[in-house]
């Protein structure tokens, strides 16, 4: 039995402890906002928060997160993610949208740690989130816009 919280709710799961968290989120808990992209931690589509830090759920066996707090795109809350969401909407960041939940999680984590990020800060934090539609310029712009919103 593996126990952890997802979006504020306790789960006791009788599953193989080697099962990747992404499989559990999508197939067992039906939280399909987190996407499968590559399965080898190369694209960032599967990013969730584990104990407040970004984590690639496709390479995270649930046995490694016993007792942890997992937050998916469905459960994200707070000023940073709201600012990111508003900025994303304002300039239509997504194209196909597949990678966007991972992009938003990483962008939110960056703003939680660096309220006014430089271009380099953004590039470094987002380098592991691939967008096949190449919306990178809009992603960077939206993160700057969200940062300005948070400054008030």
């Amino acid at each position, binding site marked *: 039995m593996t126990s952890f919280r997802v979006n504020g709710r306790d789960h006791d799961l009788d599953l193989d402890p080697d099962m990747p968290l992404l499989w559990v989120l999508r197939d067992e808990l039906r939280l399909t906002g987190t996407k499968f992209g590559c399965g*080898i931690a*190369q694209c960032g589509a599967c990013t969730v928060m584990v104990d407040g*830090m970004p984590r690639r759920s496709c*390479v*995270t*066996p649930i046995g*490694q997160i016993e007792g942890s707090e997992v937050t998916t795109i469905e459960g994200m809350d707070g000023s940073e993610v709201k600012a990111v969401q508003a900025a994303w909407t304002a300039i239509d960041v997504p194209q196909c949208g597949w990678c966007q939940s991972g992009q938003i999680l990483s962008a939110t984590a960056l703003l939680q740690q660096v309220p006014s990020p430089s271009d380099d800060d953004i590039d470094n934090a987002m380098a592991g989130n691939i967008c096949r539609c190449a919306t990178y310029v809009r992603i960077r712009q939206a993160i700057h816009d969200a940062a300005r919103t948070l400054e008030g």
Partner: protein
Amino acid sequence: MTFLKLAATVWLCGALPLWAQDSAVTISPPAAFDGIADDAERSAALFTEMGKVLTSPRCLNCHPVTGGPTQGDDMQPHNPPVVRGDADFGAPGMTCNTCHGPKNVELTTAQGSIPGHEPWSLAPVSMGWVGLSLGEICSQIKDPERNGGKTLEELYEHNAHDGLVGWGWDPGEGRTPAPGTQELFGQLTRAWIDTGAACPA
């Protein structure tokens, strides 16, 4: 998805070629150097033997002198691109533990594995030795100003028993282990210190 699968394939081929390093590299025990009568010469020879471990990709990949790590037996630039960061732990928003957990994780959808250990981080830049000669590495590794304030005894403990050092011999599927064993590496370090911790020229 096709693009990502292709990217994954390229990454795996680039990062994990088992044939890139001679897996037959071994290290000899301290007794193999007993025939060298001069203590300083024997000590330098012992360090040269230790150097087979120190210059293994398992050590070099995370002891870089640049802004970030390399990966794989052929020491490719880390993919995805990562930076050292202020704490040798990556950038805010993408620290090492975004991907690297407390243990190696075999990939579910491809061959290979994501390496992991607790803790997992780069060696500080003062401890970087990519591109240095063995003599330079030896001088650096003994220097408390550059080795994290370690005495020689603490250096022995690090080499012989540190878990992240030990990961070098248990690096997960797709990576050639460091030569020999950590026990043997510790014995060589002990003998090197006991013979005066001399450095090769």
